[in-house]
């Protein structure tokens, strides 16, 4: 079992990140090397400055707010929560002063961010079971949502354990040792990381996250990078 843990927590993480970074970079370069469209793809009336509107379209989804307000609330919540969690993971490497403007323990939001994220994911998933979104969806859409949900559940569970039912064996310091060792290419698995009762949660969390990263460059998740240039095209 410890071998499996090791494979998931060390080599697979490296492979996943390599696929993610290289894959995304190669795909973006490939797309950018295609010739431009010969004519404008703008929608009128135009609003100036158009780059500012393109930014707002990308980060605030005003068209969704207008046409599907409920979905918009969930989408906004989801993306903001995701941002919080990314910050949380960065803080698992070391403390950053800038994030501590609002003083907090590592992982903002006292465990609720993960909970909220899980709820929004369930919402996204279940709305796909209803027509006509059902007819539009392809397996990839369900798969990615389920994968994300699993990542969030197992990840949050570790956070909840520490905060909500005072489970103290796996500490932030343990994660820091593990993650930094990966970062500095001297992989080290502290005893607590692999031998405590909650270690399997960590392993599952990392396993699903690895899968997610490896799917990223080849799936619709690329919308994270392409949304801005696309909105710029529409804004002219």
């Amino acid at each position: 079992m410890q071998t499996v843990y090791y494979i998931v927590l060390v080599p697979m993480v490296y492979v996943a990140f390599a696929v993610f970074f290289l894959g995304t970079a190669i795909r973006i370069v490939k797309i950018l090397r295609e010739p431009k469209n010969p004519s404008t793809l703008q929608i009128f009336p135009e609003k100036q400055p158009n780059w500012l509107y393109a930014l707002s379209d990308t980060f605030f989804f005003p068209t969704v707010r207008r046409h599907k307000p409920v979905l918009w609330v969930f989408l906004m919540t989801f993306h903001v929560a995701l941002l919080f969690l990314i910050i949380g993971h960065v803080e698992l490497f070391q403390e950053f002063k800038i994030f501590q403007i609002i003083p907090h323990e590592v992982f903002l939001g006292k465990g609720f961010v993960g909970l909220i994220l899980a709820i929004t994911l369930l919402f996204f998933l279940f709305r796909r079971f209803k027509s006509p979104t059902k007819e539009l969806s392809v397996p990839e859409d369900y798969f990615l949502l389920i994968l994300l949900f699993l990542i969030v559940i197992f990840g949050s569970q570790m956070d909840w354990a520490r905060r909500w039912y005072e489970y103290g064996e796996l500490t932030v310091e343990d994660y820091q040792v593990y993650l930094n060792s990966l970062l500095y290419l001297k992989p080290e698995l502290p005893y607590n990381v692999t031998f405590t009762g909650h270690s399997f949660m960590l392993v599952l969390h990392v396993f699903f996250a690895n899968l997610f990263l490896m799917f990223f460059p080849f799936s619709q998740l690329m919308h994270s990078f392409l949304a801005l240039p696309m909105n710029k095209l529409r804004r002219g």
Partner: protein
Amino acid sequence: MDNKMRDELLNLFRSKINRAMRYYLETCTRCGVCTEACHVYNSMGQTKYIAAYRHEIVRRLYKKYFKARGKIWPGFGEAKGLSDMTLEELFDAAYSCTGCRRCMVFCPFGIDTQMLMSIAKLMLIGANAEPEILTMLADTSIEKGKSLELFKESFLTGIKNLESEVVEKWKIEAGETAIPVDVEDADLLYVALAGAHSIIPAAVVFNAAREKWTLSFFEAVNFGAFVGDPTRTKLIMDRIIAEAKRLKVKEVCICECGTAYRVMKQLSGKQPFKVSSITEVQAGYIREGRIKLDKTKFTDTITYHDPCQIARNGGVIDEPRYILDNLTDNFRDLTPEPKYNWCCGGGGGLVALGDETLDFRMKSARVKVDQVKATEAKILATACENCHTQLSNLNDHYKMDVAVRFLSSMVADALLPQ
């Protein structure tokens, strides 16, 4: 379908891929925000008319043939091979989409359905499965560009016959020509459609504004664009560019034809002349005081249908409203606003296909009828030949009891003597 054919069609697909197309093919999250955008879906309620559903038919091929994923794990994205059945689906998707790009306004990423459908349309041409009549019409236009001399005489006789009608509406000075043709160094080249209705009112207004203009030998309509053939589209456009350069005009003014305007405006590239729509030109005349309009000419309430290719996709939105403000005190705009205006249901070549598509056009544009009815207007003005035909058909079919009018001809009718 044999392998050779499949390869040829996939090459055509490849030829359409550029940066923007990759964005559109890669990105859709199938979120369904575009569901209520399409007039066809809203009028008929079938899932296959949702924009994203149309995209997926093209996208499945993309996933299958242009992404490694389609080979390793096709089921993941429902990647699907190209078969005769796919061609039918492509036809259904592309020729029920008018290319109005209303869905592009809804989509959080701004995916352009018209672009994606242009892949389908090009592949259909490759498979000889496109509506033949559109290709034939396109070829006739191109032929005319090549052998202008053959057409010239009959064209000029036809134009001569219209002149008396122009003079009837607006007196010209002795020695002037009512419909000048082939005038070198004119300021403006007017590209009309075949048919007196597109020439007479425009000529009257040009003469009233004392424009130094000349009429093009060619008609504006671009059947190449309707059938989604980039080569033919360009050949048809190039005839007019060549004529404009030969005559050294400063401005090319496109008649009331949405597709012709957008193609010329956005695809002609950098040229020594500017491209305008007749609506812009006429609004300019009013603004500069070159023509004056009689506000008592039309007493009924007027509303205006924005042709998609001219307004949402071409940017001519304020000008028609400026004209209408000078034409009537009884203008009632449609809701929602121009960016969200419902397509008339006749674009993308559907009107050009005539009776063949009539039933579908009537069913798919129910929402347009409701939108017009809500204004209680008696006159429905527009600035596109296609829209005019389609709106007239809708008027008959749904007994809308409105008069469908070209905006330019209303301007001609309301001219005040200076």
